[in-house]
């Protein structure tokens, strides 16, 4: 079935709530369908007890979810823009991530935190950040970032079934993009990458909103006989090292593309890991094509300069190959 990214989220949530009475949704405007429409119709279908509008209280949204999860439920909390999770950092980082560990493995925090991730929307510095690097640094959290309708249906449901706290990064710039979604869901473990394009000359690893930019760049480069393999990681913690390694073993070139700033971005982790593991397979140092080390600016001219676009990716890959 063909549908938009946001409808695929709604589908995944509805299926998860249908399958398990312990699943419930909460967040700002969630009952009214969500600021970006991802929860439309859920309150009518499942009732206000399980689809809950909250005040603008991010710490309470996450903290309440943790307590409910420790009581055996599977809350799905929505943080409208990932930037706003900064307000709930104690609950995410010191509480959700550590409860299981600090309590000797006895606590289960089967919590899903859905975050709208901005960028490419002219939403400026406080509504555009992709903060995966913050959370990748905190043991106890999983982080996923699906970029297509089929993937978000799959990975969101996988996340809700996961017994650990999972942050699901949903690129708001892709909410209206449509794509194929399988009729039937089958659970898969988190952490498997998806090769979105096969190629032999260079491996490009990316996730989230930069996936369509990378695919567009790969088309342009194909016309120049540069054959890109595009790996969509889908999950950052854990991330599919083997899939990247297998690809680099064939292409001998690795590029990582992400929208977050380059400095201490997750691309550095990938570059270091693959360099440690496959130094001799690499023809050149791993290249990182990332957001520049600035806040995200408002004016479209500046935002397009700061965030990676297909044109920049094409230019950088040409230099490498």
């Amino acid at each position, binding site marked *: 079935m063909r549908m938009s990214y946001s409808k695929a989220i709604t589908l995944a949530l509805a299926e998860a709530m249908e399958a398990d009475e312990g699943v*419930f949704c909460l967040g700002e405007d969630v009952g009214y369908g969500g600021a970006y429409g991802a929860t439309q119709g859920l309150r009518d279908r499942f009732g206000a*007890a*399980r689809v*809950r509008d*909250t*005040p603008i*209280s*991010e*710490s*309470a949204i*996450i*903290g*309440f*979810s*943790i*307590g*409910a*999860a*420790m*009581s*055996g*439920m599977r*809350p799905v909390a929505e943080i409208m823009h990932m930037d706003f999770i900064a*307000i709930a950092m*104690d*609950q995410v980082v*010191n*509480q959700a991530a550590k*409860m*299981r*560990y*600090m*309590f*000797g*493995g*006895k*606590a*289960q925090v089967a919590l899903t935190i859905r975050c709208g991730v901005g960028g490419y929307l002219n939403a400026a510095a406080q509504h555009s950040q992709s903060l995966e690097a913050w959370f990748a640094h905190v*043991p*106890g959290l*999983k982080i996923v970032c699906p970029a297509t309708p089929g993937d978000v249906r799959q990975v969101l449901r996988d996340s809700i079934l*996961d*017994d*650990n706290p999972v942050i699901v990064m949903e690129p708001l710039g892709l909410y209206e993009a449509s794509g194929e979604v399988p009729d039937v869901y089958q659970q898969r*473990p988190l*952490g498997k990458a998806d090769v979105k394009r096969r190629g032999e000359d260079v491996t490009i690893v990316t996730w989230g909103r930069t996936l369509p930019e990378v695919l567009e760049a790969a088309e342009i480069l194909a016309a120049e006989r540069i054959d890109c393999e595009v790996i969509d990681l889908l999950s950052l913690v*854990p991330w599919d090292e083997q899939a990247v390694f297998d690809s680099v073993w064939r292409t001998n070139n690795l590029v990582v593309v992400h929208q977050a700033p380059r400095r201490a971005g997750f691309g550095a982790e990938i570059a270091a890991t693959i360099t440690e593991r496959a130094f001799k397979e690499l023809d050149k140092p791993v290249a990182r094509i990332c957001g520049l080390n600035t806040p995200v600016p408002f004016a479209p001219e500046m935002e397009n300069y700061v965030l990676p676009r297909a044109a920049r990716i094409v230019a950088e890959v040409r230099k490498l190959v």
Partner: protein
Amino acid sequence: MTRPNDSALLAMYRQMVLIRIAEEALLRLFERAEMPGFIHSYIGEEATGVGVCYALETADVITSTHRGHGHAIAKGCDLNLFFAELYGRASGTCKGKGGSMHVADLDIGVFGANGIVGGGVPIAAGAALASSIRGEKRIAVAFMGDGATDIGPFHETLNLAAVWNLPVVFVVENNGFADFIRVSDHQKIDRISQRASAYGMPGETVDGNDVEAVHSAAKEAVERARSGHGPTLLECVTYRWRGHFEGDPQPYRTQDEVEAWKARDPIKAAQVRLIEAGLADPSVFESIRAEMTGKVDDAVNFARAAPYASPESALEDVYTDLAVEGWQ
């Protein structure tokens, strides 16, 4: 630790004595460096944790604080496993991964002591939310100090718990100090319970050194929660006999002030009450003290003999399924 035929007061007295003796033992063990980490002593505040927990069922949930030994013991934590945890041993309640600041026992609803001031407050409300959604009778209590009532999540939580009419009781142990700072220097109000009115819930202040007063107020709040009438903010005014942590030089108060509060020892106050009511005499107090000292000695010996945690066990329990690499 309670016996079925005890009066409520005697039962609570026994719990308070157990906590006091356990804390006194911890101070000795810490002083001679037998116990690693920090100790935040609960001495002087026993009536609050005991009076509240005596109003709870085993299934009810509590979240506790960095000063949480008394809450865990009052809720029924196994004393041997509690001490083993404070020794960092493999058989501790948290397999040695938590220690004093994170003692937890989920089987009896202890959702953990918490090293972040106020960190457990929304979590207790979340346990209450689960009860509310599932239509259960289980309620939750969030213990916190006066300092926690200044953090943002306290306000977010009380507001939303009231809006959602959740079965939760917010218990503030006002022990006079947030770290080193006196309540009068961190709040402009006379009673913390006044804050309840801002959220549309009942608030009450009681003498936190009077275990019967605490219990009676807690019982009412617990019944309100359990019967579907929503949250309560209960302030228990007590006093922190020890410093913020063991080793705190305490430049912020005089010894006279501490002695004045020691004269209002909640345990001695309960003794007076028990004698007046003809429920006990000094010989009973002696035998309870001896009994609890024996229990604590046994627990210390259990902990000393308990197996050490293997270094590599640090790699377990991060996730339910993912392995974490060590170093080779």
